[in-house]
């Protein structure tokens, strides 16, 4: 008896010591800090620079009068041969910049010198088939942890001081086609994630896990008919079985939530976008196919869906609906309203009442939409039937032109909202595609009814266009045209500035009111990451990842001409004004 008792005693002693030390060990951002990220200018704690993901900073030391003087403070290479697709947004805290790199890597750099503090490389199995390059879009920070998702669909929590693994949880099975590339969202001590997987058989879901242990709290499938769970117990079916799906296709209905979500503390709602329905051929799945290509509002405590709005009913164009939904307030028709906005792959900019999902407006933010001619007052698209890709076997070989292309009027790259100008800054692309039935197609060595497509530009002078959209009028206030497709996120500041990167390798700054280009810097490779800004030692800094990649270079055709000379890379660039 003596031994075990002694051990128990020493265990208790160790525990009390651990408890005493806990505040020190766990030192770092709290839930309250994360919710306050948009207002705290000395750090960048969340993907989107605040849970509402405005990507707006009140900092104005760098402004439209002096931005032309901006110079690099340092650059830090991600090294190795894995030089492709740096889509991450940096996290900045306590003198350290945390970035994720392609191939599921995490780096901690000294925010003053750029020296590497530690690096974590996830060991990836070679059987992963990521649909759209080996990217990662960023990490989350909480207490002493840095948390990120991996290409083999795991969530990994690292100690932010050492880079050592605290916990590592599988969130889905990569062998079934699941992957993960989005930055996690942390709300009320929970890590909230979506899932990705382009393959058939995947069902989109949103999940909440305990940030300290990675244990699942709730699971909410986004396709009607599937059961959700809360703390291991059934928690109600999503939607109504077979209401908008035929037969058993809902079981494999798609709707991957691959871009993650936003959170609005005012309404206590999570907003997640859902992907396109499966199978791709829309003629096989009559109905709206809920809740694919939609925005969902979810209760963070229970995972219950509070409202939904479907941007593309019966999606047959691979438009997805994953784009970020950004809460904002504005006065519409003399009435102060809690709103939210989303620039969809389908080419329309949506404004909804974020308290109930009610449709307010939808306006085109791209040159052309061949699939629909606007939305009616009930929030339904006026679909153009001839613009729907044909059923396999019909009209063999005859191409249908469709715009936007399936890469979208706007893809994953996040827009920004300025509280000063009241404008949304949308990184968009003007491109269409020819799509036709491919009679000689094969999948896994077996005959298949496939589709062939070619993405092509629709304007002579540009594909990319950064556009300033007035959410109250639906009018484009200014636009900046770029030869190659835009694929990076946007940042806007109190200094009347808008920053975004280009595949040609530049980080650029624009006047937020006029769109006039004020500054550019060549980073050495395409910029497809999202810039951030913060204040450190009394100076304002701007940082962005450089490293060409993502889905665009995976597709050829005429579009490829605009980026064929762009080289791979992998570096963090940090800028400031000279003293």
């Amino acid at each position, binding site marked *: 008896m003596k031994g075990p008792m002694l051990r128990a005693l020493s265990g208790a002693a160790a525990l009390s010591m651990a408890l005493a030390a806990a505040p020190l060990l766990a030192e770092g951002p709290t839930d309250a800090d994360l919710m306050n990220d948009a207002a705290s200018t000395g750090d960048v704690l969340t993907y989107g620079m605040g849970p509402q993901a405005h990507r707006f900073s009140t900092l104005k030391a760098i402004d439209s009068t002096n931005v032309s003087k901006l110079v690099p403070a340092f650059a830090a290479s991600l090294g190795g041969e894995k030089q492709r697709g740096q889509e991450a947004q940096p996290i900045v805290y306590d003198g350290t910049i945390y970035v994720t790199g392609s191939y599921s890597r995490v780096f901690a750099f000294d925010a003053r010198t750029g020296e590497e503090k530690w690096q974590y490389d996830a060991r990836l199995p070679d059987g992963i088939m990521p649909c759209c390059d080996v990217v990662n879009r960023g990490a989350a920070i909480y207490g002493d942890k840095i948390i990120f998702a991996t290409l083999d669909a795991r969530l990994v929590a690292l100690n932010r001081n050492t880079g050592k693994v605290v916990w590592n949880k599988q969130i889905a099975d990569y062998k079934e086609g699941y992957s993960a590339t989005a930055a996690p969202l942390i709300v009320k001590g929970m890590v909230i994630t979506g899932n990705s997987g382009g393959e058939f058989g995947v069902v989109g879901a949103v999940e909440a896990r305990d940030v300290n242990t990675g244990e699942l709290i709730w699971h909410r499938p986004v396709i009607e008919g599937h059961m959700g769970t809360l703390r291991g117990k059934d928690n109600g079916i999503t939607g109504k079985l077979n209401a908008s799906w035929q037969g058993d296709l809902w079981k494999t209905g798609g709707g991957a939530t691959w871009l993650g979500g936003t959170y609005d503390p005012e309404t206590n709602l999570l907003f997640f976008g859902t992907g396109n329905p499966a199978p791709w051929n829309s003629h096989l799945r009559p109905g709206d196919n809920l809740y694919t290509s939609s925005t969902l509002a979810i209760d963070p405590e229970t995972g219950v869906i509070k409202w939904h709005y479907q941007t593309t009913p019966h999606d047959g164009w691979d438009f997805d609906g994953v784009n970020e939904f950004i809460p904002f307030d504005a006065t519409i028709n003399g009435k102060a309203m809690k709103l939210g906005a989303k620039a969809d792959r389908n080419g329309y900019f949506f404004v909804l009442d974020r308290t109930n999902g009610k449709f307010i407006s939808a306006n085109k933010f791209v040159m052309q939409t061949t699939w629909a001619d606007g939305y009616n007052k009930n929030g339904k698209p006026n679909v153009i039937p001839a613009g729907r890709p044909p059923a396999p076997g019909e009209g063999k070989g005859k191409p249908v032109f469709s715009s936007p292309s399936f890469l979208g009027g706007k893809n994953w790259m996040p827009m920004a909202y300025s509280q000063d100008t009241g404008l949304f800054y949308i990184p968009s692309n003007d491109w269409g595609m020819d799509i036709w039935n491919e009679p000689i197609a094969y999948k896994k*060595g077996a*005959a298949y009814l496939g589709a062939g497509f070619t993405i092509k530009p629709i304007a002579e002078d540009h594909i990319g266009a950064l556009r300033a959209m007035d959410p109250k009028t639906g009018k484009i206030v200014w636009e900046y045209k770029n030869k190659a497709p835009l694929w990076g996120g946007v940042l806007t500041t109190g200094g009347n500035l808008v920053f975004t990167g280009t595949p040609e390798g530049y980080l650029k700054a624009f006047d937020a009111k006029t769109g006039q280009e004020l500054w550019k810097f060549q980073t050495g490779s395409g910029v497809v990451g999202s810039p951030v800004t913060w204040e450190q030692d009394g100076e304002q800094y701007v940082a962005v990842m450089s490293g060409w990649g993502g889905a665009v270079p995976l597709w050829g055709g005429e579009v490829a001409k605009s980026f064929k000379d762009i080289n791979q890379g992998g570096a963090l660039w940090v800028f400031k004004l000279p003293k």
Partner: protein
Amino acid sequence: MIARRSLLGGVGAAIALGMLPGMTHGAPLAKVKALGAIRIVVYQNNRPWSWEEGGKLVGLDVDMAHAIAEKLGVRADIAQLVADESADDDLRNGVWKGGLLGFSPGDLMLHVPFDRGFAARNDQVAIIAPYYRESFALAGKGGAVDLEGMPTEWRGRKLAAELDSIPDFYLIGSFGGVLAKDVTHFMSGSEAVSAVTEGKADAVLASRAQIEEVLHRAGDNAQGVKLRKRPLPAFASPGWDIGMAVKENSRTLGDAVEEIVTAMAASGQMKALFTRYGVDWVPAQAAG
């Protein structure tokens, strides 16, 4: 070269499939022999061709890979490839470039469609040695469905198909979609066939090899399961040949493999290999 020309039925076909006569590259075959091993790529989870059972990789393509390696006098290093969105992508990952995450390309890949149009647009590889004629077939328990009847008569019956396959498109989309609600989807053709032998479905549309292998294994449960004899009305696929692929510059290896496959077909070894899985060997049309 002679063996291949006769297999392909002419010089024109040889050119169409990316094999120019008269060009020789000695290195690939010599390299394989010097290493004492050949890396052969098969699909992961592709019953009855290549799949894991009890921790062991088995299947028609796996046995074929071992037979080829043995004839070359080397060890077979068999790699399982996860299928991408199209077989074109699989050739890039499995043969000429390798995967984004480090999958090394093989010296030889099995189960590659042997088709002129397909070969023409995949000119980084040479597609060789057609070894089987694939086709889809309908199977069901006698009595539950009239196998020889019009598909529209199967309304209300339980029909099984692999998700997102030609059988799926046919059952869901044909005849105005009248059968759409009757189709149960499975992640593979073999699982769909098993639904019939296990009494969970009345009929299945799957590849002939998938059907025959599952029935062979099902024993008594396969009793009364028959295949439709007549062709299905307005069915999209007349069948397709399956061959192998080597890198475009691996002609010496391709030649050697083709000779081996031709000899296996002539000697009856090929038929015996398929018989072990209960599958009737159907020679590729291009090999005829």
